[in-house]
């Protein structure tokens, strides 16, 4: 990547985007953020024109349709936002020699492997969201633009909807909670993701080497049931005692008849050897970050 003057951030109000917005200033003084109103990703024909006005050297695409269950019902919308708009952005990046940073997901894999997923493992998505995210990766690579794809797994944040918050909400409402115990992953704090993204970008700019695709995650592994236990444990009495009942994902889908639940990979762990080698540092364990965030997660829920 050549010297970066202008950066365009898409998805500034999202879980990761909201943190990136503050931190990108350490890379460039000229950071432009386009909100959903300013750049509607469903209006495909307007995307290139809007980017043209700013002429960025780097685009960070932290926007997207992220509701995995909703994606099954609203396929057209999911495809448009996650695939078609990405293609437009990538084509613009290629035509204008702009560097594109794009977030992808472990959901491009089927989860049927024992070990954490490597960057070049065979993709085989099992839900519609994953299918779209895989297609977006292919669009970026075949656009021939300079790109960095960062693959993520379980993201949580103080803002926005995410799993720890869902648990906290349920704890406040119900006495018994059923939780899946056969799906594993690494809960990753959105702020940690954005800080690490900045680190990666700085290294790419300084060293002029591009890893192209990187898994981005903290270390460690947990399932949803154990995660809920941790939340109760760390809440220090701020949440009432409830009964947590472990069940497997098939049972969970059966008891949730009201809502169509997308199939999720059993193993959502990302192998981060390539990332740690590239940055030449060891990633922290997710739990060390989580402990610090849990009071805010609980407090923020009350509002």
């Amino acid at each position, binding site marked *: 990547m050549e010297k970066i003057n202008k950066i365009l951030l898409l998805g500034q109000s999202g879980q990761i985007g909201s943190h990136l917005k503050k931190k990108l200033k350490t890379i460039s003084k000229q950071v432009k953020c386009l909100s959903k109103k300013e750049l509607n990703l469903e209006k495909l024909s307007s995307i290139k024109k809007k980017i043209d006005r700013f002429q960025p050297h780097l685009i960070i695409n932290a926007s997207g349709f992220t509701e995995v269950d909703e994606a099954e019902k609203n396929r057209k919308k999911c495809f448009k936002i996650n695939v078609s708009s990405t293609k437009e952005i990538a084509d613009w990046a290629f035509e204008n020699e702009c560097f594109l940073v794009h977030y992808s997901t472990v959901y491009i894999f089927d989860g049927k492997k024992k070990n954490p997923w490597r960057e*070049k493992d*065979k*993709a085989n998505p099992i839900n519609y969201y994953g299918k779209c995210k895989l297609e977006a990766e292919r669009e970026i690579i075949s656009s021939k633009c300079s790109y960095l794809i960062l693959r993520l797994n379980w993201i949580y944040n103080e803002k926005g909807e995410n799993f720890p918050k869902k648990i906290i909400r349920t704890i406040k409402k119900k006495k018994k909670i059923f939780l899946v115990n056969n799906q594993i992953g690494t809960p990753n704090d959105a702020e940690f993701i954005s800080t690490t993204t900045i680190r990666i970008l700085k290294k790419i700019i300084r060293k002029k080497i591009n890893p192209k695709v990187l898994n981005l995650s903290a270390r460690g592994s947990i399932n949803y049931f154990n995660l809920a236990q941790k939340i109760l444990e760390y809440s220090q009495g701020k949440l009432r005692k409830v009964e947590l009942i472990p069940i497997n994902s098939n049972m969970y889908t059966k008891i949730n008849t009201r809502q169509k639940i997308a199939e999720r990979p059993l193993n959502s762990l990302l192998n981060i050897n390539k990332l740690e080698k590239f940055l030449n540092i060891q990633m922290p364990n997710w739990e060390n970050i989580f402990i610090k965030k849990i009071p805010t997660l609980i407090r923020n829920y009350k509002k």
Partner: protein
Amino acid sequence: MKIKKLNLSGPCVIEPKIFYDDRGFFFESWNKDEYLKKKLNIKIVQENFAHSKKNVLRGLHIQYPKLQGKLISVMNGRIFDVVVDVRKNSPAFGKWCGVILDSKKKKSLWVPEGFGHGYLVLSKSADVMYKCTCKYYPKNQVEIIWNDPFINIKWPTKKPILSQKDSLGYELKKMKNLPRWKK
């Protein structure tokens, strides 16, 4: 020059006649009329050269809709070269065939239009030269995943070195845009 048929109809292996003497050796690596005599009507418009390390797997590739036939030769080293019939409605759809090409015997593999192609480097490194019947169209490049369970190629490795693009190849059965089989 000898033409050897494979158990897939269309592709074939071409064995050149090599003349050795005390200076070295000589052979014709391409002769339009000689090929025509053997009913191989190949029109070359581009030639490419690729150097790869051991255990590198390039493929499986097709160009669509601008189809491309390829004549593969190994200048240095040894490769396991694979051709797959990916023509819609072909009786051999998804069938594959693998041959060893090396710089000793200097055989070439003919990959006709409508066939997928990929190879694995077996030697310390390999230089592969291939002639094409259609020029390169980057946006027409399509990757089929090397370990597609339907094609089920018996690669002599389980963990090849891949490009990111090749690692995201499609499964053949999930592909809509494929060449058509004509009788």
